[in-house]
């Protein structure tokens, strides 16, 4: 068994943005916060490609390293999660993140930034605690990947998704001969 990962097949993503709205519908994310966003490179030219950009849940996550309040933490199953109560909204994680994943709702000018928000791999319910106050590690179910219209975005156990992707490629190779 591997850790939880996203795999993005850029030869299939058509920027239908279904991942963005699936995320918002199921997590109740407000306008202006995009836990996942599809970006297009070379728009309108040969070589145009779309890439969904969620949080990539790094193994050695820079955001976890720099977080001054230990808001961000790494779970055993690979999910980089966060505890809302501890966040002071400093934005240091955004500086450290190589992908621009952390989001800050609330907006406004100086000092009104909200608490950090990011992709939680759809751990449902989020930040659930048992009677002793210990965090329950609920199973992650990434809605963006499950709803992906063309199956470009695969999400879940890395062993499983790499197998799915290899089958796709192998299908092509076997057919070419």
């Amino acid at each position, binding site marked *: 068994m591997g850790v939880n990962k996203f795999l993005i097949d850029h030869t299939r993503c058509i920027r239908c*943005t279904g991942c963005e709205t699936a995320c918002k519908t199921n997590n109740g994310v407000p306008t202006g916060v995009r836990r996942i966003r599809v970006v297009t490179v070379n728009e309108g030219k040969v070589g145009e490609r779309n890439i969904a950009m969620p949080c990539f849940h790094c193994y050695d996550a820079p955001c976890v390293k720099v977080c001054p309040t230990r808001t961000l933490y790494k779970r055993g199953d690979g999910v980089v999660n966060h505890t809302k109560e501890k966040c002071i909204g400093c934005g240091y994680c955004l500086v450290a993140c190589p992908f621009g994943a952390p989001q800050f709702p609330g907006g406004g000018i100086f000092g009104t930034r909200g608490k950090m928000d990011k992709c939680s791999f759809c751990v449902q319910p989020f930040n659930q605690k048992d009677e002793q106050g210990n965090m329950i590690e609920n199973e992650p179910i990434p809605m963006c990947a499950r709803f992906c219209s063309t199956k470009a975005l695969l999400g879940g156990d890395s062993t499983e998704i790499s197998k799915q992707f290899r089958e796709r490629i192998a299908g092509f190779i076997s057919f070419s001969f």
Partner: protein
Amino acid sequence: MGTAFRDIKISRRGFIKASAALGAATALGSYAGSKNFNPAEIFGTAQATPATTVEKIKSICSFCAVGCGYVGVVEDGVFTKMEPWEDHPINQGGMCCKGTSLVDVTNSPRRLRYPMEKSGGKWNRISWEDALDKVGGKLKGYRDNGEPDSVFMCGLVHGSNEEAFMFRKFAMLYGTNNIDHQARLCHSTTVAGLLASFGHGAMTNSVEMLTQSKIFFFMGSNAAEAHPVLMQKVFEARDKGARLIVADPRFTRTAAFSDMFMRFRPGTDIALLLGIINVLVEHDWIDHDTVDYRTYGFEQLKEVVKEYTPEVVEDITWVPAFDIREAARLMSDNAPGAVIWSMGATQHSVGTYIIRAFAILATILGWQGREWGGGCIPIRVHDNVQGATDMCVLSHFLPGYYGVSSASSWEYWAKVFSETTSTSGNISASTLASRYTTFTNKEGVETNLQLTPGLTVSNWYKGALMQPVSEIDQPTNVKMAMFWGESISSITEMKEQKKALEKLEMLVVVDPFPTAAAALPERSDGIILLPAATRQEGGGSVTNTGRAWQWREPLVAPLYESRTDMAIIKELAGRLDMGNHFDYDSYEAVTAEINLGSRAIGNQGETPERMKRQKEYAHLFDPKTGKAQGGPVDGEWWGLPWPCWTESHPGTPVLYSDLLPVSEGGHDFRGNRTYPTDEPNAGRPMLREDEPQYGTQHVPQYSENGVAYSMDLTGAIVAKALADGNPPTGRGKMRIRVFEQTDKIPIHREPIESPRPDLVDKYPTYPDQPHLYRIVNCEFETEQQRSIAEKRHEKFPIVLTSGRQVAHHGGGAQTRSSELLSEITPEVYVEINPHLAAGKDIREGDMVWVESARGKIKVRAKITERVNDQTAFVPFHWNGVFEGESYQDRWPENTAEVVVGDSVNIITSPGVDQVTQMQETKVALCNIYKA
């Protein structure tokens, strides 16, 4: 704002619950609290309570026609979340942004909450009884005065098959053919073109079967934006080596994935197709098995395409001759292939002929008629537009494609209405006929309006504005219009429409959202809005683009005071003394009547029980073919695609493929045509030739004692055909040459507004047509010559084309009312090539005027190489701004859309298709300058 998201989520649900409770309260007659609705208040006060009941209901998405399934999560009677339906054979759980926003759309606080009337310049709330009395009274008045043709009804493209059928039946019994729906603007030319060529006017494959294709030829379809989930099937085929060719005026998001892209001038589709056919014929890359035995008119086609050499076509279309040859080679090397099109090919003044050219291309390459995965793939646009077309909410057909011009169609349906056990009413054909009026037309000929096709969505405004008798074939003007889930911003000539809307005596809008029809006209009274339920609140069956029927259970009860379309039609029918024909006790009862009557296309097998059973056993269906293996649904095709001849028939996944026995889903070209008079064997039925390897196979369409299988209510003739191993439609020929149309073989004709006057001389459009869909003189040549005389090609040198955005749908009333979707695409824009923009000093983000001979719109400039320097593109989903001026204040309070924009259909071409009145939105001439 330090709220944790979990809290936001709960308060969101609380908000939804609160608004649903509000609906329940008002439905009971309490008016309190709903008038000045403040979402923020409810947001703040909502309490976090865990749901006591959680239901998960399988349903079908209500946007485009691919027919994706999803699982709706209903907590305490409120639709709160969605889960993927992962064993649904069409989408395997995948959905685009529109589908995954259904929760937001359904629970939108911008929905119409109760019936409203505009009087004295203000929107006033009225009761349902009052509203229905007013609408019903007005309808009754026109009928009792002997002028039922003063009414124009249109819509129900987003209803179920059952509601579409009821709506058509309502107009039939009321006494007018002035009924039409969005299919007129989507695929009416497809229906006409394919029906004339093959025998049925629908997509020839199921969606699942696309995975079997070896090459895709997208022409006039930007599936990546308009039908995203269909691309899943395309990519699955590509994983097995399938090629993609995209021909489009724009380098679309679909084109970005192509192996080959051909940019052609808008409106020159036929020239390009004939160029490809020319190369195929030249090299004899023809499937002779199909062409020699199963087609008519190939020799004449050879004569016509001789002229369209790649070099000639290059001059007309901009496509290099080399590319045309290369495309032909790719197509002949990879079979079977699918020709995929959508509005880019249909919305032309030559639309029907473009579709016929597609049919010819697919047939001579051998993609059509035998192989799976190939053929003609028109992708329909609304969730039930195929179903509403089959139920013929159209001014020239009765349900099931029985033509209005034939008296026997009316007799047949009168018999069905009487014999059905679903309703108590009885009616004779003569009583039905007596409700229609006759009048003497301009030439002094007496016309029976029962047998005359009515006004259409694309020309309804002419019915209101033009002079009766001298300009329109009606005794009266249209004085009342009903827009039932129909968006006027998708119809061209919006300026004329605005005038027509202002001239009407009464305007009725039945919709979950008020839509632009309610707000566009500057009138102070005479508008009635009826809040209809969304598709998540109504049930019935829906037909997807691949003719597959799927059953949709309501997820929740109608919110606020809204009512289902079925309930509204029943109430109106009761007020017109037709209630005994509409006393259905359930959706299933209506389906039974459709099963009884709609025989031409074989809707006998699509019973509610079978559809519900398929839903339960969806996991047994193979997503690569759509066929079930094992279980109680063994051997059935997903959705029982019509023709599904009997209750034990598995459905027909591939039309015209003779590979399978008919009892397992085989079919053949329709055998109901005869040879034309200019042929040596004139008058004889046109049937398949004998093929040595298949035995004798010429079979005419089945009939007994002069009664065709399609009019035999006992089903005995169909049973006989199936026992013989033949389709009841016989085994006929595909017609390359269609003798009843102006162009017997499709030829290139310049669009109504052409940037090339020199080519207009060589390839002029059609002569003007008399008496076409109630227009006394439908202008083609006159309009084209007017464009040249006014020198529009000099004043407006840029070719304007329109299209879709992934986050919006149709006229946008639903999607632009959703915050999720508005965030993704918040604005309307015009795509301009960098070279053109530089010459006009336009920069990214500038506001510009796009002007044509009809008017001008103010939109934002988007500089992109998607278009070349002679073309501009504007998406059409927008309204709320008219020629630069916002009219958001004319919407009822709290119902205006989140984002608004200027409508491109103010400036699109006035052209219409010569056969079906399809509007020509894809080619117009415009100019662009800084605002």
